[in-house]
């Protein structure tokens, strides 16, 4: 043990932080090079646009997770919440209470956002008012949301029935604006808003304070419970936005939708440079982390060297290597 070790643990100047913030982007760049070597098609616009488009779900959910994690919380229920919100949304749109498809679609989307926010609020209240460790609280609600979805779907799938509605809704995932797929726009717009709120507003400041040191926040007159609860609500809204993109893609959902997405979202957040202990939030890092995860999967499928049995192992190894690269980058300097 020497002093050098303890010195790196606590960065000395804001400089250090900058390198840490850049590290995920360097890891992403390295992966792009690796991908280009693995398969010629990798670097094509079509492929990259595919990959980024489909990272939208995890990226947007991970934006919410960045809020929760920077506030010192954790949400394991997001995958189940996707299934739950999507089920209710589709069931509502299948119910036919509104005749006009467009109106119905808008109502369905509003409903999804409301349910997402409500689920987030529920998570938030259990952890803050109920004072239960977030890991356990949201593991519990994960069970609840997934169980309710199973019950709603009676163990099967819930499929959007109305063809007209489906046709109307399809462009939300498959459409393009000025040549850019809608989900990509959704990622960047959501991230921009998230970044603005986190870095530029009063609430964002409070969030980071709560995550850094709860007591300091409390003594500074910040309502820790309120700030944290809102973070969970933001997470719920992000889940709902992901659902808005998810439903038109597959037009259907089931009790298995979104399984393990929580781990992917958290991984994206951490790979993006946000520490799990709270107090730091890196919105753009998170987006980058989500891209990294998706690209690793893409490279696995495009390259033909890896036995499909080993894909999981290689993915795991790549994540670890990416983190090691980050670490060694931020240690230099």
């Amino acid at each position, binding site marked *: 043990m020497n002093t050098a070790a303890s010195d790196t643990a606590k960065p000395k100047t804001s400089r250090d932080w900058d390198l840490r913030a850049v590290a995920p982007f360097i890891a992403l760049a390295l992966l792009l090079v690796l991908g280009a070597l693995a398969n010629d098609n990798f670097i094509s616009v*079509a492929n990259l646009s595919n990959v980024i488009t489909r990272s939208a779900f995890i990226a947007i959910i991970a934006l919410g997770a960045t809020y929760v994690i920077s506030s010192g919380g954790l949400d394991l229920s997001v995958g189940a919440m996707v299934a739950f919100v999507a089920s209710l949304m589709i069931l509502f749109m299948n119910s036919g209470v509104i005749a006009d498809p467009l109106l119905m679609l808008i109502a369905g989307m509003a409903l999804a956002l409301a349910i997402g926010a409500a689920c987030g609020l529920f998570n938030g209240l259990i952890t803050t008012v109920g004072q239960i460790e977030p890991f356990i609280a949201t593991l519990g609600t994960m069970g609840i949301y997934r169980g309710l979805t199973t019950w709603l779907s009676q*163990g099967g799938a819930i499929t959007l029935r109305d063809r007209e509605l489906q046709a109307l809704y399809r462009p939300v995932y498959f459409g393009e604006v000025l040549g850019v797929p809608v989900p990509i726009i959704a990622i960047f717009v959501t991230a921009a808003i998230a970044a603005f709120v986190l870095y530029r507003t009063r609430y964002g400041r409070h969030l980071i304070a709560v995550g850094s040191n709860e007591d300091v926040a409390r003594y500074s007159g910040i309502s820790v419970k309120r700030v944290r609860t809102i973070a969970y609500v933001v997470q719920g809204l992000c889940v709902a936005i992901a659902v808005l993109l998810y439903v038109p893609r597959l*037009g259907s959902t*089931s009790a298995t939708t979104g399984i393990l997405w929580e781990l992917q979202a958290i991984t994206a957040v951490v790979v993006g440079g946000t520490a799990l202990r709270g107090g730091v939030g890196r919105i753009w890092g998170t987006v980058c982390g989500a891209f990294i995860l998706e690209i690793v999967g893409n490279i696995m499928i495009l390259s033909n060297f890896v036995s499909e049995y080993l894909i999981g192992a290689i993915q795991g190894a790549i994540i670890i290597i990416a983190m090691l690269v980050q670490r060694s980058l931020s240690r230099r300097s």
Partner: protein
Amino acid sequence: QEEKKVTIGVSIPAADHGWTAGVVYHAERVAKLLMEEHPGLTVLVKTSADPATQANAVQDLAVQGIDALVILPTDPDPLVNAIQQVKDAGTFVALVDRAPSNNDNGVRDLYVAGNNPALGRVAGEYIAATTPDAKVAVIRGLPIPIDQQRQDGFDQGIEGSNVEILERQYGNWNRDDAFRVTQDYLTKYPEIDVIWAQDDDMVVGVLEAIEQAGRTDIQYVVGGAGSKDMVKRVMDGDKMVPVDVLYPPAMIATAMQLTADSLYDQVPVSGEYILDATLVTKENAEQFYFPDSPF
């Protein structure tokens, strides 16, 4: 002679339990055979763990340029759109096993399937015929549509008989969960005649739990799919496993074969090929026994 260059993409679920492992095994086996048979042919086999990643995998295959797609969807409805895209690009699509709600020629050219409702029905009919007054405890798989189809088939199979269903619980197609559920069934019901476990993997757990409890009231267990272990037991005349219901993972091989034929022999292959849910008994077991398969 110069064979034309053709690429077939095969997208199947990851080998996450016995049956899918069988699918992977047969897909790999036939891919090799086909490529030997046709020097110009490339077969890309890709596995995915869930619908979302499988949709990605299909997209990735399409990016690489394929002439035909053989797909066994993890969950069909969520994948319809992804398949549709490939189909719309003019690629030949063979859909295997799991059918979406609208399974017509607009979505695919060829449909090869085992028969999920039949798997349930055959098991139900066997139980109704062998033990018409049986009290049956059921262990289901995961809450997805295939499971529901098997369940509905089973209910049809026992219709009209005196067979009574004590309970249905999810065993998640997992041996350990099946063991746990069975233990609790045994605690809860002093008398159970038959356990239908819907899948051979789960039967392993069921049998251990019964043996441990030392219960003799259970007359037999019916599984499904045709794993080599269970088929072997049927072949050997195991009292607890008198029959098995076939749901062969080799159906992927059939689909790949047919697809290759349609590309090379210019024979227009299309339509539906539904494989039977054959009842494996001591008499016919031998022909369904593949000792080399992982399943």
